[in-house]
């Protein structure tokens, strides 16, 4: 006992006069056991909600490689797993592919603001094509109703619900992923779960995203969406034509966004939003092909073409233009 206060400095406590250590000790041991038991019981009860997580992850998914590091055989196995999962959940065998970018293709989008009437058909076609969650509703395209005479987005209205569109005195500005050539979202991702493909599409590996949402904070176009809940897609709405980097059903806790309908466009079709547009405001194509419609528009409408937030230096592949 005497060596316990060997260093000077601390206040010297008085020695205890009466030591009832034994009874105290046994009491502590008893209550310690009871506390430990109560603690384990409380912990078990407290973690009960985790039982719902049975299908959250598996060793197979955890050990799955990053998209860019998978061999073709590994990718085949993964595509098969995805198909099995979709079948189990929706009772329909999907056609899941991993379409690669085509050589000599760089996709570009152009949107004619003089034509857009703000009907939001593109928004819904996109949801249907890309298997977005219906509850909670998740949409890639946001149409902003703008008063004529300004491009100041803070003056816009997002939740407009008039009897009919277009409304007098307004124009409509649909915004979706701008597929930047210098994408801030890609730069910030801590795990390289999102990157730019050679054909200009910025994609996400949904099986690699950790859900930190840093890319959402970085995006100057409000283009990225997060699955705050397990996505729910009505069975009858499921689009069975799927691709790994595109519209296969997503899991809870990951980010997604417009990918120019990669499952369509890499197979030579137009994006769903373009096909549905009733006024032909949307144009899409290969900018490396001088004969394409998109090349023609960018060449001929040059004076009336602009990109959103040019000062950000993001170099979008999404152009807005006006008729003369």
């Amino acid at each position, binding site marked *: 006992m005497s*060596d*316990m*206060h*060997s*260093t000077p*400095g*601390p*206040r010297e*406590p*008085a*020695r*205890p006069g009466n030591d009832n*250590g034994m009874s105290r*000790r046994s009491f502590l*041991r008893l209550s*310690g056991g009871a506390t430990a038991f109560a*603690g384990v019981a409380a912990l078990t009860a*407290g*973690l*009960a*909600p*985790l039982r*719902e*997580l049975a299908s959250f*992850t598996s060793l197979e998914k*955890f050990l799955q490689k*990053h998209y860019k590091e998978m061999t073709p055989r590994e990718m085949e196995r993964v595509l098969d797993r995805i198909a099995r999962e979709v079948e189990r959940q929706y009772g329909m065998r999907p056609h899941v592919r991993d379409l690669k970018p085509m050589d000599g293709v760089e996709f570009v989008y152009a949107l004619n603001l003089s034509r857009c009437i703000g009907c939001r058909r593109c928004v819904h076609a996109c949801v249907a094509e890309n298997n977005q969650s219906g509850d*909670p509703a998740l949409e890639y395209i946001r149409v*902003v109703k703008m008063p004529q005479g300004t491009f100041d987005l803070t003056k*816009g209205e*997002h939740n407009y619900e008039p009897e009919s569109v277009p409304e007098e005195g307004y124009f409509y500005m649909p*915004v979706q992923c701008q597929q930047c050539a210098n994408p*801030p979202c890609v*730069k*910030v*991702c*801590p*795990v390289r779960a999102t990157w730019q493909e050679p054909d200009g599409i910025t994609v996400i590996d949904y099986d*690699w*995203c*950790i*859900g*930190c*949402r*840093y890319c*959402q*904070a970085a995006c*100057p176009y409000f283009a990225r969406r*997060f*699955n*705050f*809940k*397990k996505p729910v897609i009505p069975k009858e709405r499921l689009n069975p034509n799927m691709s790994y980097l595109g519209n296969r059903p997503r*899991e*809870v*806790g*990951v980010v997604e966004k417009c990918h120019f309908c990669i499952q369509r466009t890499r197979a030579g079709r137009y994006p769903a939003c373009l096909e549905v547009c009733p006024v032909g405001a949307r144009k899409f194509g290969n900018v490396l092909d001088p004969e394409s419609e998109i090349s023609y528009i960018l060449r001929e409408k040059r004076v009336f073409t602009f990109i959103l*937030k040019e000062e*950000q*230096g993001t170099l979008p592949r999404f152009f807005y233009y006006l008729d003369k």
Partner: protein
Amino acid sequence: MTVVRNYLLFLRRCLRVAFAGDWRYYAWMGVLTAITLAGLHAYAEQLAGGLATTGMTDQVSWGIYIANFTFLVGVAAAAVMLVIPVYIYRNRHLSDLVVFGELLAVAAILMCLAFVTVDLGRPDRAAYMVPGFGKLNFPGSMLAWDVVVLAGYLLLNAHIIGYLLYCRYQNWTPRRWFYIPFVFVAIVWAISIHTVTAFLFVGLGGRDFWSQAIVGPRFIASAFVAGPALIILALQVIRRVSTYVVPDEALLTLRSIVQVAMLINAFLLINEVFKKFYTDTAHGASAEYLYFGINGHDALVPWIWTAIALNIVALAILVLPVSKSLRYLNTACACAIVGIWIEKGMGLVVPGFVPTPLGEVVEYMPTWNETLISFAIWAFGLLAFTVLLRISIPILQGSINKENERAEIRGSGRSVRTPETRALHVQTEEEK
């Protein structure tokens, strides 16, 4: 082998002392454990239900978790404010207290890591950040930088205090080359963890509210207020509940740090507010939302003005000589801590998202579940800090050391009643 065995014996004694104490210690630890468990339950709910159980949305995609994270990185960084006077200016008043500062840093980093983890949508994939197994985007992503510097800071501090305490336990003189270089690295590193955290925000060019060069300096200044202020309060609690002597001079040395840092912080705030409001450009919409609200959306307005009032009170007390009296100093410290927590937490993170880049105004309000998780992480941090102190104080005082190791082991393998528990126990009786 004896080296390993000795070290394991040391760890065993540390573990044992962590579970020993008087009824107040058990009550305190019991309450903290209960809150932590409640939070664990809330987190289980969040894992099962997704982040929809929080108040976050696509529009405001970070909330109270990242707010607390930002504040606590500052606390961790500021722990070195005790180290600098000791090792650079050789201030003896603070020399043993360095350990307390570094323990606080360790606890704060643990809280930081907990806050980023609960913010993840897929914590099961956190391992994808480990180089080799995953694909850490270093040096591209500032978040990757943050993970690296925080982990490094945790290791540095754990090494320094672990080594110093073990030497004290063994009654060895610490070898200077084995810890002094780390101390100096830790000082620079501390500044870096908070700078990197600032860059996390500053690097987002699309968010005008954050993308300001002044954010980094303001982070450091406010951290050097809140951190030492927290240490001032913690030291007084330590000297009240243990037999450890903390001289008033040490508290007053810290006071002058808080004082200067608070003045610099206020000066930088004025710079920031002037730039945002006098220029009156469209880039000031987030600041307008924060301070005055936009079109009736004003959830943060009462908070930020409370923070400003608290900071002004703290500043006023600190610059006056009355703050040499501990009662006033404590008031100032408490005001400053709360004020900075609001201003640099929710007051920094949320307005960055409002309005959105497309001009939409969506407000954020943390849910009950989210709030409970945050409280629980604080409780967990306090739990960790208390345990670390519970172990370190008797070692620093010399009441647990190599000499009495044998006696304890021979006495009774399972006894909770070691000499160091008696010291605490006796003090309670004295107070009665």
